[in-house]
């Protein structure tokens, strides 16, 4: 069977977790007194990442000059990409508003005007939808059998990536990171059990745990991505270098998990 979506789409599925997670985590961390710097970097970071990813998606099209068709056409609302493209465009628009508001704010630390509050809420909703989007997208592709039911994992890995970046930016995300790590571990275990249940999927589980993808799964996704950072953050909470390293490990782990959800089974 010919594989329709190649490396560019794999990169999309992995990287889209960043802007989604960044928006959600900067909001979460910012709830109790946001540091202006974090809010600004969060908005800019998400915007730049999302635009880069959109360029990547348009490049993947055989007819890039016709990318607008996915935005202006509403004939097939059953198509995940039709929604996905529109959500990405909407989020970019919202981020532009937020960034505009953040930049024009004098003096820099004054709370944002009420209108931006509405935009922020919308932004959260769209980001959460985009966190689930890869699952919906890949549910329609026979080449990614694992991805269809792994909405939770896509959300969690997105949040992990967001939290990791927040921590790297000096934000106070340590507790959130630990919580997310625990949640991810549980989610992974649940997913593995679910796979073991269904006869057809036992092959996929074997591929994941003992087959070709085992080193990536055990080594990076679980080891480096979950256990190592959890241990690091628990034992040496104060040490800045260790925290940063753990954040990077979390990023790598989340990326690996998302790639495995995309690639295994094709």
């Amino acid at each position, binding site marked *: *069977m*010919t594989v*329709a*979506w190649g490396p560019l789409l794999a990169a999309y599925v992995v990287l889209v977790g960043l802007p989604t997670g960044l928006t959600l985590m900067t909001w979460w961390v910012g709830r109790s007194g946001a540091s202006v710097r974090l809010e600004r970097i969060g908005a800019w970071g998400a915007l730049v990442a999302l635009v880069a990813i959109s360029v990547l998606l348009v490049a*993947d*099209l*055989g*007819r*890039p000059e*016709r*990318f607008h*068709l*996915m935005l202006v*056409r509403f*004939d*097939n609302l*059953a*198509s*995940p*990409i*039709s929604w996905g*493209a529109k959500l990405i465009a909407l989020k970019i628009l919202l981020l532009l508003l937020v960034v505009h508001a953040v930049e024009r704010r004098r003096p820099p630390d004054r709370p944002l005007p009420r209108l931006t509050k509405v935009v922020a809420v919308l932004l959260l909703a769209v980001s959460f939808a985009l966190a689930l989007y890869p699952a919906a997208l890949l549910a*329609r*592709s*026979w*080449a990614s059998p694992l991805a269809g039911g792994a909405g939770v994992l896509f959300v969690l890995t997105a949040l992990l990536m967001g939290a990791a970046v927040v921590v790297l930016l000096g934000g106070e995300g340590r507790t959130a990171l630990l919580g997310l790590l625990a949640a991810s571990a549980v989610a992974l275990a649940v997913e593995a059990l679910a796979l073991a249940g269904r006869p057809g999927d036992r092959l996929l589980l074997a591929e994941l745990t003992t087959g070709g993808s085992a080193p990536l799964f055990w080594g990076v996704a679980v080891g480096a991505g979950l256990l190592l950072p959890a241990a690091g953050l628990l034992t040496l909470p104060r040490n800045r270098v260790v925290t940063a390293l753990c954040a990077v490990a979390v990023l790598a782990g989340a990326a690996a998990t998302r790639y495995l959800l995309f690639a295994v089974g094709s």
Partner: protein
Amino acid sequence: MARLGMLIDLRTCIGCHACSVACKAEFDVPLGNFRDTVKYVEEGAYPKVTRHFIPVLCNHCEDAPCLSACPTGAVVRLDDGQVTIEDGDCNLNRACMAACPYDAIYVDEDRGAAAKCTFCDHRTAEGRQPACVDACPTNCRVFGDLDDPESEIAVRAAANDVTVWKESAGTRPKVLYVDPKNALPLIEEQGVQVDTTADLSGEPA
């Protein structure tokens, strides 16, 4: 408004490829891309061994994954149920190819759009049979309206127990097979396209 379908009787298919070449000739389908192919699969151990011939093509499913996956509405269903692609609306995001369990859709570089079997709507519009049905020497391919009880396809479908390819995909395909030797499960993992990397190389290592 008919519900067009095809019936392929594997008892009298001699695997001669007339259908796949007639389709190539009718649409000048580029090399490496296929709308209809004949799958050869051997089964059994010496000396009790046989080879099955299974012509495969797009099934024009009633619950078409390609149609529901296409974000630009390029994949459309014609009045008589044929699933076709409008070149002008396709930006080659290949969602249809990812969604199709039968691997029946390919990228036509020439037209810069996805392409697939159209049940030869340009021929049936003139009251003719699809090219593959016309070319089949043993008439093991029958095309017609599944809802018309008098049509040859309906009569033959009723007279034999028919099955479909990859029933588990749940797309309600409209290509029916008479498959007494139960050969279809053997090509569960295959698709319409040909694996162009399968040949042994002739260049010295």
